[in-house]
């Protein structure tokens, strides 16, 4: 414990702790409005979602276009359990996690044998199915009418003779979301540095070499897909208890694409990159939502802007803003080589 002194920390750790403290005290700055807190919570929510999705394309190299399906399943799990049974959110989190993982296994086990694009198409179809189910199974979900009046999150200590504290306004959700992001990041770091994570990276880099090391491709892909789905569902469970209203059109394909963009933009496979991707795209989306009407353009134009960003990224920084270390190292080496080549060329001239 003695080495927890400030001067012993690396620069990276100092930056992280600084950022965390800043985030924790942010709501107390006078200029911070409820609206800004709302956006911040949205950013945190998308960080959780992007980190969850990242497992499949970032860690395993598989394209997943149906992530929003699990987000929707988690949201409705949370909404319905609250609506019908009044379950506490703290009980719902693990249930949503398990339900997400369950559907992940159900979808993944038969389809993860498919390669690349075929698998992507299946996941896409799945997320569309989820939306259709939520829209048409009116007996369960009330369909397009949506599910209103979901209880807010509360901390209920009445069983132990304590008080019951309901989450009113954005502030408590802000802190709840921070805790959830921290837990997610913690889990991701632990996985990344474990036998499971290494098996995934092996699959991402070379499937033939991976099986030759004794890695069962299907098994590990299913685990990845299940855990990814579970985090999507947990994100959904938070969403339901935060906005307290759900409707099927909140879980359209567009959401999957947006989350995928965050990963690609931030740096596929890099935990920090993915979070920054979420931060940038959610903020940008909100800024554009305000800005575009002022310019006399419809709000939908922001999708065009995202498309443009993706095209530019693919052209100039295909590995994202914060690539994984090896890719970053290769890019550095490439730059050095190019510089050397340029230098020799100019010397010859």
């Amino acid at each position: 414990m003695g080495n927890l002194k400030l001067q012993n920390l690396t620069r990276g750790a100092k930056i992280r702790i600084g950022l965390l403290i800043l985030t924790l005290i942010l709501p107390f700055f006078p200029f911070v409005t409820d609206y800004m807190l709302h956006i911040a919570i949205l950013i945190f929510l998308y960080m959780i979602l992007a980190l969850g999705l990242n497992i499949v394309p970032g860690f395993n190299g598989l394209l997943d276009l149906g992530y929003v399906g699990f987000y929707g399943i988690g949201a409705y799990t949370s909404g319905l359990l609250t609506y019908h049974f009044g379950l506490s959110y703290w009980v719902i989190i693990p249930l949503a996690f398990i339900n997400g993982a369950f559907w992940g296994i159900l979808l993944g086990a038969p389809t993860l044998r498919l390669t690349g694009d075929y698998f992507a198409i299946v996941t896409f179809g799945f997320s569309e199915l989820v939306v259709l189910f939520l829209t048409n199974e009116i007996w369960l979900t009330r369909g397009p009418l949506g599910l209103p009046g979901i209880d807010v999150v509360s901390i209920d200590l009445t069983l132990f003779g304590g008080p019951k504290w309901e989450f009113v306004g954005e502030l408590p959700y802000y802190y709840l979301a921070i805790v959830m992001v921290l837990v997610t990041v913690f889990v991701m770091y632990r996985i990344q540095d474990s036998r499971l994570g290494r098996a995934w990276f092996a699959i991402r880099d070379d499937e033939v070499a991976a099986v030759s090391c004794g890695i069962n491709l299907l098994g590990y892909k299913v685990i990845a897909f299940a855990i990814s789905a579970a985090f999507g569902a947990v994100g959904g469970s938070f969403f339901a208890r935060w906005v307290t209203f759900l409707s099927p059109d909140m879980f359209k394909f567009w959401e999957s694409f947006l989350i995928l963009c965050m990963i690609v933009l931030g740096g596929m496979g890099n935990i920090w990159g993915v979070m920054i991707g979420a931060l940038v795209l959610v903020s940008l989306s909100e800024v554009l939502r305000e800005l575009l009407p002022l310019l006399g353009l419809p709000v939908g134009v922001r999708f065009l802007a995202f498309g443009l960003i993706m095209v530019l990224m693919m052209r100039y920084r295909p590995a994202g803003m914060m690539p994984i270390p090896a890719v970053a190292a290769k890019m550095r080496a490439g730059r050095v080589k190019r510089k050397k080549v340029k230098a020799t060329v100019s010397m010859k001239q």
Partner: protein
Amino acid sequence: MTPILEIKKLYKSFGGLLALNNISFNINRGEIIGLVGPNGAGKTTLFNCVAGIERPTEGQILFANRGRTISISGKKPEAVTALGIARTFQNIRLFDNLTVVDNVKIGRHCRTRSLFFGAVIRNKFQQAEEKEIAESANQFLEFAGLKGRGEEIASSMPYGDQRRLEIARALATEPCLLMLDEPAAGMNPQESRDLMDLIRRIRNKGITVLLIEHDMKVVMGVCERVVVINHGEWLAEGEPQDVQNNPKVIEAYLGTGAAGAA
């Protein structure tokens, strides 16, 4: 003593092409055996069949380990690795984006067990396992002559070192039989000599080595026995010197126009 691997009447066809045509030979426990033949003879295909990457069209592959003899033809590659057969690849296949030590750690995969909950909670079992993985990975690196290189990115290493790393990774799976597919390709003479030394040290650990190699110096230098195949057919078998002087072998190499037939 029963051979460690028996290949019996093995056939493999790719569409109309017979890549392996009635191949039979045995590998004895503890020997270094060479598998040679001109380009396209079917050597790599044979490796793939043994390793479970390809399913033989016909024939049997029997693997004797821990007093039992099992048929491994048609088994899944991960199962074959778990049984104790490891291999390297002709076109190096490393995990390019990972560090050198992580590559070897992945080789430990089939001898370890922790999954999601172990990773997140880091219970005693998982911690002990991680410690074992890290320690043995470093031992295998040292054994392969890559001590202190663990933190480099695999794909940024020179060619010869990548070949060594692949061997270290294969050794990390704790094989009884190690199959090397042209490990000396692209190595300079000094590196080839180091490689021969490494192969001998591997055998001295009690691991049987099956070696595909075009570099005749290496084959003559380390192999105790050589099997020659040509056009997917068994051609000759015996001590390196005898095989090298076998007229059929010379004809196979010269006849196909392959230069450097010893």
